[in-house]
């Protein structure tokens, strides 16, 4: 009498599982020389996974739920699944050259990465506590290990240790909160919780439960004061893994947060609204100001991704604080659009770091001086991504900033206006350190004693750069592309 599973809705997950298995067997079977096939296999697998997602998105016959409501495949879920697959695709492209050059175990690397992608894909449509928790653990488990992939390097060990310990601690706090949620509402699926949440919104236990859950996810998106792990882990971990962490695992954290706040306890916005407001303000400011002083480019990108998380939190917090419904829907749409654009911008930036590091042979920004003179291609990509992060038209970043600002201003209450003000100041500060990198690359003379690195550049890294660059420019000139993400998703804000 087993449960009725809607296999079409599960198609992406099934395809991913198939790829996982294929990669694993290939890794075992193939001799060391042909190990690169695992990469090809995983890329193929991801493209196959993308097909059902696109099909489901285009065939608009509404949301498909199964397992009595705990697993929902609606536009919101599909968009994020698509985003995770795309991000995974690009990260793998970036890591092919990186892994080969380090003589590491390729098979397992791709296996773990695909497992993490599977976790985030499941999270996107999870609508109950257990599935969400398992999805979350599936995302972060492999990442703990991937962070420490460069076994010989002490920094990589330290990165994985820090990430692991804090990850497990935040998971414990999350679980404690979930246990209380279950205790108070008696159910595990979000529909039930949201009904109960309305009457409970002032009981201390419920407040504790909600906030502990929020803390769990806040750790994932590295919001201040739970961000301390991010800079060290980003610097220590191998760069493609850092890219993946700063984009996909952060997006997974946001997905969790969005589902929990919008679907599980929309009426408890008086709790998580102000909390998010504080987190947004703190994250933006601390992220931006500390980024000003960074000398290592990866550490700068780490603090920059914290600051961007802060910017993403702004519309999120506005939705929590403001009252009128369509402002909330717009704000919700804004967050999703910002995440989509941020994904491509940041992946591109990290791809540039990988490509550039090959020539500058170090992470210090002053070592990157004069890159434009001997490597104009990479410098041009760097210019596009860093200025897009800064939010300069006609690159996609400006539309993200615009949508974020309009959501903040549209909020209507004094608090949202104050947040918009803080965001404006932060935008200017942010411009300064992005421009510093661009200035270094383009204007400063080449530091003496500089030896040009290996000239050849891996094909797949260039493909990754081109894909992200195309999206960033296309979305910049014709923002309807990223606007599509926001609009289709706004429906979920309307409730369950």
């Amino acid at each position, binding site marked *: 009498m087993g449960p009725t599973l809607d296999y079409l809705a599960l198609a992406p997950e099934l395809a991913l599982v198939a790829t996982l298995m294929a990669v694993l067997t290939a890794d075992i079977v193939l001799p060391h020389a042909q190990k690169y096939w695992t990469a090809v296999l995983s890329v193929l697998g991801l493209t196959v996974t993308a097909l059902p997602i696109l099909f489901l998105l285009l065939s608009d016959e509404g949301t498909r739920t199964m397992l009595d409501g705990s697993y929902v495949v609606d536009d919101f879920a599909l968009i994020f699944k698509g985003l995770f697959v795309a991000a995974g695709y690009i990260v793998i492209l970036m890591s092919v050259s990186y892994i080969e050059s380090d003589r590491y175990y390729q098979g397992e690397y791709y296996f773990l990465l695909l497992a993490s992608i599977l976790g985030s894909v499941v999270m996107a449509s999870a609508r109950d506590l257990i599935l969400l928790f398992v999805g979350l653990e599936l995302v972060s488990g492999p990442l703990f290990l991937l962070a420490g992939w460069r076994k010989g390097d002490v920094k990589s060990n330290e990165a994985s240790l820090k990430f692991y310990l804090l990850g497990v601690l935040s998971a414990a706090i999350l679980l404690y909160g979930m246990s209380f949620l279950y205790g108070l509402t008696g159910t595990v699926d979000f529909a039930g919780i949201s009904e109960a949440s309305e009457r409970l919104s002032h009981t201390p236990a419920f407040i504790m439960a909600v906030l502990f859950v929020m803390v769990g996810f806040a750790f994932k998106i590295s919001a201040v004061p739970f961000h301390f792990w991010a800079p060290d882990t980003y610097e220590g971990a191998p760069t493609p893994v850092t890219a993946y962490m700063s984009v996909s695992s952060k997006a997974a954290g946001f997905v969790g947060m969005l589902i929990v706040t919008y679907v599980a306890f929309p009426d408890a916005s008086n709790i998580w609204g102000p909390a998010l407001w504080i987190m947004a303000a703190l994250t933006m400011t601390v992220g931006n100001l500390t980024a000003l002083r960074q000398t290592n480019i990866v550490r700068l990108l780490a603090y920059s991704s914290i600051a961007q998380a802060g910017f993403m939190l702004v519309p999120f917090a506005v939705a929590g604080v403001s009252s009128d419904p369509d402002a909330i829907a717009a704000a919700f*749409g804004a967050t999703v659009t910002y995440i989509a654009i941020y994904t491509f911008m940041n992946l591109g930036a990290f791809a540039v770091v990988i490509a550039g590091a090959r020539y500058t042979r170090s992470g210090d920004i002053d070592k990157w001086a004069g890159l434009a003179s001997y490597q104009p291609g990479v410098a041009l990509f760097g210019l596009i991504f860093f*200025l897009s992060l800064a939010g300069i038209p006609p690159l996609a970043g400006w539309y993200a900033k615009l949508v974020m600002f309009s959501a903040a201003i549209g909020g209507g209450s004094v608090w949202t206006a104050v947040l918009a003000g803080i965001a404006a100041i932060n935008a200017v500060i942010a411009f300064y350190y992005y*421009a510093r990198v661009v200035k270094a690359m383009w204007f400063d003379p080449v530091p003496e004693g500089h030896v040009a690195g290996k000239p050849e550049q891996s094909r797949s890294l260039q493909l990754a750069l081109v894909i992200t660059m195309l999206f960033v420019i296309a979305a910049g000139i014709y923002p309807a592309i990223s606007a599509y993400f926001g609009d289709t998703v706004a429906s979920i804000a309307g409730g369950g």
Partner: protein
Amino acid sequence: MELLDNGTVLSLITFLPLVGALVVGLIPRAQEEAYKWAALITALVVGVLSIVVAFVFDYGDSAKFQFGTDLSWIESIGSNFHIGVDGISLPMLVLSAVITILAIIYSWDHWEEPRNPKAFLILMLLLETGMNGTFVALDLILFFIFFELVLLPMYFMIGIWGDKSPRTIAMFNLTTETRLYASIKFFLFTLFGSAFMLLSFLGLYFNSGDAGARTFDIPKLIEMAPHLSALPIAGWLFAGMFLGFAVKVPMWPFHTWLPDAHTAAPTVGSVLLAAILLKLGSYGFIRIALPILPEQAMQWAPTIAILAVIGIIYGSLACLAQTDMKRLIAFSSVGHMGFVMLGISTMTEAGINAAIIGMVAHGVITGMLFFVAGSMHHRYHTRDMARLGGNATLMPKMGFILGFIAMASLGLPGLAGFWGEFMALLGAFRPAAGLPVGLFQTAMVIGAVGTVLTAGYLLWMLQKVNLGEPKEEWAGHEFHDVDKFEMAAWVPLLLATVAIGVYPRLVLGSTNGAVKELVSTILENLA
């Protein structure tokens, strides 16, 4: 013809330079001739198109936005690709197209220090897209994008090809290269201004909601003007826009970026900066700030007038203290733009017409001044007036042109500069009803005194640079006088100066109709 009506020609004028930039980008760096011609042909085609538009433009009804189109662009926030040109923006569009052609011709065979003509041409074409786009945009977001797009190419032009001499920053005992300090200062200043401008645009967008669908569309916003200017935060909205545009004009307290940007910029860079970029601010006032928030404009008009007049006096006095020739011309721009803003602040037909013809004239004349200053710098390798002298004996043709254009710049009647200043004073004598007449009349008198100071520093500069005996330093030196590229670039500008001076109708014919319409809508919305 249908080619013109559905906006294709205007889109071509705006985006052809972008295509040109791409084409230049693709041509390999070796074939210099190939991409130089490609850039020139693109600029020429755009120039011809803009002149065709000027010919076919219906001057009888110059208030209507002609050749426009209104395609949907980002429906979610209700901003669409709405472009069009009317009597006010037409002269600026033609000026922008023509100046770019001349800039390319001028720099045909002498490029600034890190010799990279390909990158320079690409930046110039990008700049042209930004400029043309701003003048045709009729949607706030479109306007904002082109307004910002202009920043990047100029930032790189100043940053890469700028003046490399070290410069100590006062009070901070820090020495950096002039070009780096100037480019970052230019960028941050304008970015700071335009951030607040964007906030105002968003404020307008949100508050336009209750009188019909929310929109970024300028003509629709103008229709909603009575409602918009009655809003409690309308004052703040105008303040935001004022800040954004004032930084760009530049008006007095926000002007400190201009001298640095001009002195550091390469010749063609400062020409384009002076000729067109400064006008984006004042054009913004006329196109957006005044018609959409007329009541606030009236409240702010006295302050703008005072700042404009201070700008005139301040600019002229600062010029008298300069030793660097290009920095003197930069401060003169502050003075001339002071007259343009005085014209706008009077909110009369005379004043706004004065502003537009003043903008066109200043573009032509100061463009020429910077060209000449650039060429002299190219030959003498110095801009320090103390070392220059006797230029008219060393290079008679260059001396004559410098003398002629200095005369035009000081507003000699019969040349283009005069009409802008004269009509601004005319407007100031009797400002729009409701404005303090006494204040504006004192502003008029101070403005008139300003013309004397302008004459002062220009003739002083002429005497120091052009007349007198050449210093012995240049004794053995042989100077080649104006070469054929420079002459080809300069003759059109000189002819334009005389033509507009003798026959101002060339500009007024197109602007007067639109300005009459603009002022009548403003007064209507005020009542």
